[in-house]
């Protein structure tokens, strides 16, 4: 086969699968149409029907244009298809936002779509408190689907061909097979998420009713807040975020949902299918427990100096809530954004920044370094110290537990260290761009950690008035952080291959 023919076939294959994924995301617009019809929001219905038309035209158009493509994905093609489809979905998904008139520019609308898909939770929407219910449904559905993954969605419902499908699944930042077949794995992920959707919405609905919300409003708020929590996204229907509800019960239900939402889907599956002890032994659960406890001690010490939260309950409700929201990369908050800058000490902010960077579990809805990698690096450190004190002839074997006992090898450590280094460089880069535009260094570092780890807590930088270039940088950083670098590097490698022909 000639080089030109190979390149053409590669483009067709990528286009075909990206088209399938865009079609799937487009069909999701039927949900906001239904909600808008229920509330008689006719303008919103028209906006979403237009969006649906564009999404289906783009999706089906790509599928038909590329129908002759070979249906076998190589590693690079699968990864490029996954990361490329996220970009198209961002452009297409932003159309109803823009048409609603609540976003100042198309860039702002795309920012919010990427923030939703990557489960970050930063917003540039204007007048959020008066957003139509249909648009709110779309915002939260985006973040719920983004948490599970758009490829996972397409693999469950739209893509039958299996040859190489696993490469797209990995390209989306997940790399664990819950079941031997990748399609069954995708179905299992949706099964766990939908069971929790029912349970979590019910609990959040009851909590809403108890604070006096009308039945329908309590239901939709309950479902949307659940979606924001489960996907560790951080979107809520009100600009005051969770503070709006002024309810300890509402906050508590949310905490349970977003901590459980930050668990690895392999862990959920193990516990649900009989391996009950896994929750005590899993390296990510242990790692999360240790880092969350240590970082809360840091935050608590930082806050104790200010005397801001005088009782242990207040300290938990404000300090621990923001810390855990940051650590699970959710981004729900029960304080105003500027309170971080005005009331919290640098020590407490450092605790939140570290938590945002570490993040939740691998193969979950969360972002950041991930507990698995932090755990592996910690184990490697301990092994190095043991090696120093052990006799030269000693053979040291270190194991970590994730579903089964795994012997720690150099390749695990190298891979974990590489990703952590890449995350850190990305965070430093985003911090530098924020500082370049004149924001204080600590504020820039906080906001950069939030976008890098797909968290969504804001110290006040993210606003419609921020520089456009900074918005673009944050969009790219959210995308890179969510897809965990490799599939984005695959796009770069693919483009070089296309241009140079090798």
């Amino acid at each position, binding site marked *: 086969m000639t080089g030109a023919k190979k390149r053409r076939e590669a483009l067709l294959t990528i286009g075909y699968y990206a088209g399938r994924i865009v079609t799937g995301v487009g069909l999701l617009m039927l949900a906001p149409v239904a909600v808008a019809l229920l509330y008689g929001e006719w303008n919103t219905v028209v906006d979403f029907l237009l969006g649906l038309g564009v999404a289906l035209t783009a999706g089906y158009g790509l599928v038909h244009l590329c129908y002759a493509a070979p249906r076998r994905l190589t590693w690079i093609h699968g990864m490029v298809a996954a990361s490329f489809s996220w970009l198209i979905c961002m452009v297409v998904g932003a159309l109803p936002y823009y048409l609603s008139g609540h976003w100042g520019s198309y860039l702002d609308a795309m920012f919010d779509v990427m923030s939703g898909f990557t489960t970050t939770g930063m917003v540039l929407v204007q007048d959020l408190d008066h957003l139509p219910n249909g648009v709110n449904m779309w915002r939260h559905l985006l973040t719920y689907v983004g948490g599970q993954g758009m490829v996972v969605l397409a693999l469950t419902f739209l893509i039958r061909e299996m040859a190489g499908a696993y490469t797209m699944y990995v390209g989306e930042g997940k790399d664990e097979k819950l*079941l*031997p*077949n990748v399609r*069954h794995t995708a*179905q*299992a992920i949706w*099964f766990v998420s939908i*069971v*929790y959707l029912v*349970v979590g919405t019910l609990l959040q609905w009851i909590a809403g009713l108890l604070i006096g919300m009308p039945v329908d409003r309590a239901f939709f708020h309950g479902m949307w807040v659940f979606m924001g929590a489960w996907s560790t996204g951080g979107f809520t229907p009100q600009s005051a975020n969770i503070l709006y509800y002024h309810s300890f019960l509402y906050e508590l239900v949310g*905490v*349970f949902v977003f*901590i*459980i939402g930050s*668990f690895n889907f392999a862990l*959920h599956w193990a*516990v*649900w*299918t*009989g391996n*009950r002890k896994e*929750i005590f032994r899993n390296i990510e*659960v242990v790692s999360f*427990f240790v880092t*969350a*406890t240590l970082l*809360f*001690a840091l935050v*608590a*010490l930082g*806050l*104790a100096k200010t005397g801001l939260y*005088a*009782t*242990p*309950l207040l*300290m*938990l409700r404000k*300090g*621990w809530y923001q810390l*855990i929201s940051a650590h699970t990369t959710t981004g729900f908050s029960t304080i105003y954004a500027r309170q971080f800058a005005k009331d919290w000490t640098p020590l407490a902010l450092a605790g939140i920044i570290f938590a945002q960077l570490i993040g939740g579990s691998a193969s979950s809805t969360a972002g950041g370094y991930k507990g698995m990698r932090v755990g592996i690096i910690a184990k490697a450190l301990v092994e190095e110290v043991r090696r120093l004190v052990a006799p030269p002839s000693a053979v040291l074997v270190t194991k970590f537990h994730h579903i089964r006992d795994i012997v720690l090898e150099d390749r695990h450590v190298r891979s974990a260290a590489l990703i952590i280094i890449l995350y850190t460089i990305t965070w430093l880069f985003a911090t530098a761009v924020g500082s370049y535009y004149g924001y204080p260094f600590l504020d820039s570092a906080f906001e950069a950690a939030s976008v890098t780890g797909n968290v969504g807590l804001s110290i006040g930088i993210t606003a419609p008035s921020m520089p456009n270039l900074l918005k673009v940088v944050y969009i790219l950083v959210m995308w890179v952080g969510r897809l965990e670098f490799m599939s984005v590097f695959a796009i770069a490698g693919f483009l070089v291959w296309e241009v140079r022909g090798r």
Partner: protein
Amino acid sequence: MRERPQPLDNWRGHVLGILIESGYVGVLLGAAALIAWAVNLP
């Protein structure tokens, strides 16, 4: 042979799974409450 997913209709197992995962969050919350109490000691 065609592989099959594990049964999804084991409701008792799933409820137990949700309770175990919630229990973990309770333990984490307890550890945080201890720290919050310790730093607020007079």
